[in-house]
């Protein structure tokens, strides 16, 4: 049954989309707004559970992606396809869906306290957040550029709104406008690139594009320049979304101005979705044409790593510093695409999947600590404001130190393993010099990450600056369980994740490799 099959493939996305609408409708009838966070989290968990249930559904037989000379290329039919080839579900997509839902749950936990404190409406916030996750799921399961582009927009549009959610805050509005203008522009560039790919191949499905490109190559037709332009436009759309240099200039302002939980969500989930969606597009549709887009990627990766890390050095606002750090991490992640494209091996892609989970844990944790401090006392996200934290809030300081160490990539944290697998994949692909650049840049990053630790433990707080003043908690409903518990829970989960996966990276790595198992096998 074609239809039955299609619906099964879609199920996690449907669950999340229905929860989005449900949260917004329930919001109208309920006075206790703290229920909404539970509802949103439950929807996301259900989506993840459904996806995990699908993991075991396909065994052997149908290969989705197959290693091809010079790149990963589409071979055979999808493990589970639906809607006339518009979408295809596989282990890769399942891994991504579970990752998006998990990040979504942590983001909801981080948001509730913030929204309550700022007196902002919560129903619409969670509704939009769930719609974004739905779009991300769509990007992961799409096997057709039309479905991909619509999913991409479903992810992007509500993100612009969330960035400007606290409209009374001028900087939040500015962030939203900036993100919207540059984002809409990059969407148009992406659409143009996809249209050129369609013009060159006459197909919109990834498989059709791959076949068309192979035909062009076999026919020896003079379309190289045309294809390069098409790929450059698509890569540009991708680079904007992951804030790769030179398309990064929006990121620091947007990350600084947006509400902190939204920043945490954007830096982790939106980046993860862009990498997952574009990895599938690049490798399934154009794996064999690595030469046409790979060199652009190498330039992009080097620029992104160098500029992101160097510009992070002088930042004294932590949200801005983490924005530049997020740019740098986009550079490391791009290395995975390069490694996979160059070697025609899936190791690079599974290294990306592992790194995305690792990065989500440590980055959500770091932003969560900032939200936690802000919830307890007045704090302007500055480096100086952290002085004396080691004495004032020892538990928080230890967790923050853990996240900073992990972001630097020092064992025994998950950040180390993420970088280890990525750089190993790059070396295996025969690009040792690129791995050396990445390692040197990681060393540079140690300065600004560990400076945070230094400020927390070796700087005395200024007189009265860190006095424990309760936050303006007037908006908190009486009798409701403190939403601060959500923030604390999210930070502790992230901290445990960083540490446990750091000590035992095996299971997550197996999952990341398993996500591409079918894709490699016959």
């Amino acid at each position, binding site marked *: 049954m074609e239809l039955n099959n299609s619906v099964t493939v879609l199920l996690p996305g449907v669950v999340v989309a229905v929860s989005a609408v449900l949260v917004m409708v329930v919001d109208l009838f309920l006075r206790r707004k703290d229920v909404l966070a539970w509802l949103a989290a439950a929807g996301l968990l259900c989506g993840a559970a459904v996806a995990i249930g699908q993991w075991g559904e396909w065994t052997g037989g149908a290969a989705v992606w197959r290693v091809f000379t010079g790149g990963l290329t589409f071979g055979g039919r999808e493990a589970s396809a639906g*809607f006339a080839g*518009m979408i295809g579900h596989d282990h890769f997509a399942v891994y991504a869906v579970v990752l998006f839902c998990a990040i979504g749950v942590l983001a909801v936990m981080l948001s509730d306290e913030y929204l309550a404190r700022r007196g902002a409406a919560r129903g619409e916030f969670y509704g939009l957040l769930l719609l974004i996750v739905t*779009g991300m799921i769509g990007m992961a399961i799409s096997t057709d550029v039309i479905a991909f582009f619509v999913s991409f927009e479903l992810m992007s549009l509500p993100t612009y709104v969330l960035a400007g959610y606290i409209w009374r805050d001028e900087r939040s509005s500015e962030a939203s406008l900036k993100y919207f203008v540059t984002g809409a522009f990059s969407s148009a560039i992406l659409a143009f690139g996809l249209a050129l790919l369609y013009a060159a191949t006459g197909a919109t499905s990834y498989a059709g594009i791959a076949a068309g490109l192979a035909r062009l190559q076999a026919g020896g*037709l003079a*379309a190289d*320049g*045309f294809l390069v*332009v098409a790929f450059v436009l698509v890569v540009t759309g991708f680079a904007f979304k992951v804030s790769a240099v030179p398309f990064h200039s929006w990121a620091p302002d947007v990350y600084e101005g947006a509400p902190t939980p939204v920043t945490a969500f954007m830096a982790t989930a939106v980046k993860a979705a862009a990498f997952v969606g574009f990895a599938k597009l690049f490798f399934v549709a154009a794996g064999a044409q690595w030469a046409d887009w790979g060199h652009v990627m190498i330039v992009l990766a080097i620029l992104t790593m160098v500029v992101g890390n160097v510009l992070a050095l002088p930042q004294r606002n932590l949200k801005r510093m983490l924005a530049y750090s997020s740019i740098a991490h986009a550079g490391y992640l791009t290395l995975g695409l390069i490694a996979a494209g160059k070697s025609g091996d899936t190791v690079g892609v599974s290294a990306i999947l592992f790194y995305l989970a690792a990065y989500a844990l440590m980055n959500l944790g770091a932003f969560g600590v900032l939200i936690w401090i802000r919830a307890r006392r007045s704090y302007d996200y500055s480096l100086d404001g952290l002085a004396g934290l080691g004495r004032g809030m020892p538990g928080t300081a230890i967790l923050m130190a853990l996240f900073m160490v992990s972001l630097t990539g020092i064992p025994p944290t998950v950040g180390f393993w993420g970088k280890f697998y990525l750089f190993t994949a790059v070396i295996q692909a025969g690009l040792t010099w690129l791995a050396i650049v990445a390692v040197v840049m990681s060393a540079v990053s140690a300065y600004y990450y560990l400076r945070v630790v230094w400020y927390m433990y070796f700087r005395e707080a200024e007189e009265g600056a860190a006095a424990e003043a309760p936050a303006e908690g007037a908006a908190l409903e009486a009798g409701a369980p403190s939403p601060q518990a959500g923030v604390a829970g999210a930070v502790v989960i992230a901290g445990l994740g960083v540490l446990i996966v750091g000590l035992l990276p095996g299971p997550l790595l197996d999952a990341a490799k398993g996500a591409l198992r079918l894709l490699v096998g016959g």
Partner: protein
Amino acid sequence: MPGGDFHALLFVIVAVWILVCGLGVVLFRRIMYSAVAMVFCFLGVAFAYALLAAPLVAVIQILVYVGAISVVIIFAIMLTEVQTGRLELFFNRQTAVAAITALVGAAVLAVVSLSADIGKVGDQSLTPGLRQLSRLIFDRYVFPFELVSLVLVGAMVGAIVLARREGERP
């Protein structure tokens, strides 16, 4: 094909029309003039669709873009009009850089498109009538079509969230 030259001539006229109107949208200093130029631009695109043997798409273009979207844009301009200030585009100092970038980009695109030998795209025999179009939308493209409805939900909720000002509830 005897009608070929006439068809090509018509296409050139429509293309120039679209380009001139498009430039008008960008270059007019008064935003209302830009909006009107955009209406004419939409009309030109509708003619282009008609020339490409897609009358239905042309009619929809006129109904939706010329009819509905233009009106909404003009309403939006009138509603957001600030009484004290004048509704003018302010040009910044990067105009020259932007113009050069755009021209170089256009030149590169033109050169590679004209030199590329990629053959004809798509099903040339297809006559996009109502029946075929609905078949495509509700059969092959039903997934993106339904996804668009979610995009619209997100856009509507987002617009309300951003526009809501007075009497905001907690």
